[in-house]
């Protein structure tokens, strides 16, 4: 299948489908959502309260604490639990901590290899469970944010919202996607590994499992944690072009639809369209960059009698075609998904810059729900800067943006680079990081930089040559994942709550419009400028130096 067709089907399919899905999300999260009676009954007494933003956060926090406890217990006792046909043993405490933090925060950074370490019960009962409810947490929080911006004094009820997202969005969509996966040749079995006797008389043990169900929610919930170690490059996790295209659509469709949902709930569809456009431009930029740089042949083979006509195939699968590597790499890091369709460590050095950029900006559609929340922070900054530039009082959604909002927005934007650059600096300078890289020089630096970027962006992909299942890596990335998950949810909700309390100012000809292309350009400028100022030095030390070392050889 030609690359152009793959690109058209993937992006076109996602764009077209995101529109009706956005409409459905708005229906589900409206005041009279379907099935709300059942959800209230499940939640009990608290299902009927109208929550302020702070109460909503508290509910979300309690729910997530409980998620953490449940997963830690299951992973800590997997050797004694059922559905363990291959007899997987106990895990170390730091790996349990890391994996729990990773799946509760919707990151799915994996310092283990699924088919080696995890029982089926751990995979389905802990990890896949979290892939549903952590994704639902993100979508619910976006609904609350949008309601506050629409001017509501209370922001809804977390316990109802999280059920709406789980049962009315993620479950039906996962079933459809898993069905397509099964038709596309993906395994779905509870039988254990099989022993094969090869034609040359050797024995090959083939790990299998309930893959299709797991992978569907992995892709849809911007989770990214694979059933198998090498994720969607594994032939069982991505057996055909059909599963490949469905997977790539699935990983971007809910983040896209979240923008439309935001527009519908706030009643500002034209504004949402402008934001969507900005995200699309960023996506197109990263995509062109990575496809261009990945079409160069493997640099290590320069001068060897190896055909140089097909681009860099190291870490790539033939059945998925030449485009999948760079396309998937950009989609998965733009959306905080973190599944991979090719090994990122073996991408050409400059190609590797595209996924890094995706995680540094972290709002090109972004994670389910939280991507749009991240973008909201940039919008606040853009509104404020634009207001300063033209001498008007900055307003957003009919509310004045003042010192308190700007302080909170700046704090949100401050933590993300702090986690990435601070963590990288510490690990690059000490044995904690330097002793775990598999490549000396700038590529090794890139490996450390990538790992912290991935943890801070709640992404979960990695330069997997890094030996990251060590106590320092497990603990450090756990802390980063937890802080980088909850701070950028809590602070933006506080901004929205603060805006909601203010009196509405009339929108006049003097109001800065946020639903015109001019604002889109402004927003794009703010994102690119902030990103470049923060991350260019690190980019130069890693991927760019890596590339230059090559040229000089």
């Amino acid at each position, binding site marked *: 299948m030609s690359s152009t067709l793959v690109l058209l089907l993937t992006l076109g399919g996602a764009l077209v489908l995101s529109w009706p899905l956005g409409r459905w999300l708005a229906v589900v999260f409206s005041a009279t959502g379907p099935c709300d009676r059942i959800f209230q009954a499940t*939640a009990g*007494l608290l299902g009927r309260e109208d929550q302020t933003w702070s109460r909503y956060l*508290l*509910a979300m926090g309690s729910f997530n*604490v*409980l998620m953490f406890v*449940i997963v830690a217990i299951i992973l800590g006792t997997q050797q004694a639990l059922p559905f363990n046909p291959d007899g997987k043993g106990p895990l170390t405490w730091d790996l349990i901590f890391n994996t729990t933090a990773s799946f509760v925060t919707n990151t799915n950074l994996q310092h283990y290899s699924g*088919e080696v370490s995890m029982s089926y019960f751990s995979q389905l*009962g802990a990890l*896949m*469970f979290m892939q*549903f*409810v952590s994704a639902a947490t993100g979508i619910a929080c976006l609904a609350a944010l949008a309601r506050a911006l629409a001017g509501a004094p209370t922001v809804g009820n977390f316990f109802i919202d999280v*059920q709406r997202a789980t*049962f009315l969005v993620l479950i039906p969509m996962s079933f459809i996607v898993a069905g397509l996966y099964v038709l596309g*040749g*993906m*395994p779905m079995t509870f039988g254990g*590994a*099989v022993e*094969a*006797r*090869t*034609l040359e008389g*050797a024995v*090959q043990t*083939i*790990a*299998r499992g*309930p893959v*299709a169900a797991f992978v569907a929610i992995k892709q849809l919930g911007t989770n990214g944690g694979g059933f*198998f*170690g*090498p994720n969607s490059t*594994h*032939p069982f996790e991505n057996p055909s072009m059909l599963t490949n295209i469905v997977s790539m659509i699935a990983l971007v469709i809910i983040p896209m639809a979240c923008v439309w949902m935001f527009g519908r709930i706030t009643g500002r569809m034209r504004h949402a369209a402008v934001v969507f456009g900005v995200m699309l431009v960023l996506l197109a930029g990263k995509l062109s960059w990575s496809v261009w740089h990945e079409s160069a042949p*493997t*640099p*290590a*083979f320069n001068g*060897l*009698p*190896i*055909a*140089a006509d097909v681009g*860099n*195939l*190291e*870490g790539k*699968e*033939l059945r998925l075609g030449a485009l999948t590597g760079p396309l998937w790499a950009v989609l998965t890091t733009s959306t905080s998904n973190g599944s991979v*369709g*090719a*090994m990122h460590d*073996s991408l050409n050095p400059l190609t590797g810059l595209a996924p890094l950029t995706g995680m540094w900006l972290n709002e090109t559609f972004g994670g389910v729900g939280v991507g749009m929340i991240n973008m909201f922070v940039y919008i606040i900054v853009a509104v404020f800067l634009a207001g300063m530039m033209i001498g008007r009082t900055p307003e957003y959604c009919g509310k004045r943006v003042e010192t308190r909002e700007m302080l909170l927005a700046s704090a949100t934007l401050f933590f993300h680079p702090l986690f990435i650059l601070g963590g990288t600096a510490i690990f690059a300078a000490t044995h904690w990081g330097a002793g775990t890289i598999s*490549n000396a020089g700038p*590529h090794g630096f890139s490996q450390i930089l990538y790992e912290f970027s991935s943890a801070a962006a709640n992404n979960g992909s990695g330069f*997997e*040559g890094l030996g990251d299942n060590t106590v320092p890596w497990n603990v450090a990335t756990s802390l980063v994942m937890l802080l980088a998950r909850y701070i950028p949810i809590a602070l933006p909700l506080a901004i929205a709550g603060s805006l909601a309390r203010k009196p509405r100012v009339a929108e006049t000809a003097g109001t800065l419009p946020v639903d015109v292309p001019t604002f889109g350009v402004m927003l794009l400028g703010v994102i690119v400028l902030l990103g470049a100022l923060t991350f260019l030095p690190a980019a130069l030390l890693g991927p760019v130096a890596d590339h230059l070392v090559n040229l000089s*050889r």
Partner: protein
Amino acid sequence: MKLFIASIRILAAAFVVCCIAYPLAVWGFGRVVAPDSAEGRLIRTADGTVVGSRLIAQAFASPRYFWPRPSAVDYNAAGAGGSNLNPSGEKLRARGEEIVARYGATPERPLPADLATASGAGLDPHISREAADYQVERIAAARGLSPEQVRGVLGSGLVNVLEANLALDAISSRE
């Protein structure tokens, strides 16, 4: 405390739906519409012994068989993985040189790139048609077949190495 009780009730409901009903429904769907691929597309001999999976690469070292792409995990289908090598690094170059020597590639007859690069999972079941053609002479000589007979097992597009090798054995057993 009330917050935790509400959370427990919801998580319990979610567990039943997400971790029991949903996987069982997908499993049932797979059993009905695609039982073969749901089990991993296994290939069995007449007596039921599993030879391998159509989707999973296996090691082939004999000159009588098509050789698959290199594997960073030695075709371990219970612990898959890529090389994760720096694409411009010395380690990858060393592997390239070793493979060039194994195939006897020359500047006049360069090796197709897929035969020199390890796949993402180390289990890529396919090689390109060019990579298969590259090996035809060797296989024909080792089996005492004509190159046309060997080429006869190849379709158009990507070549599934295990299926092609099974077809080769079938031809040789008829000869």
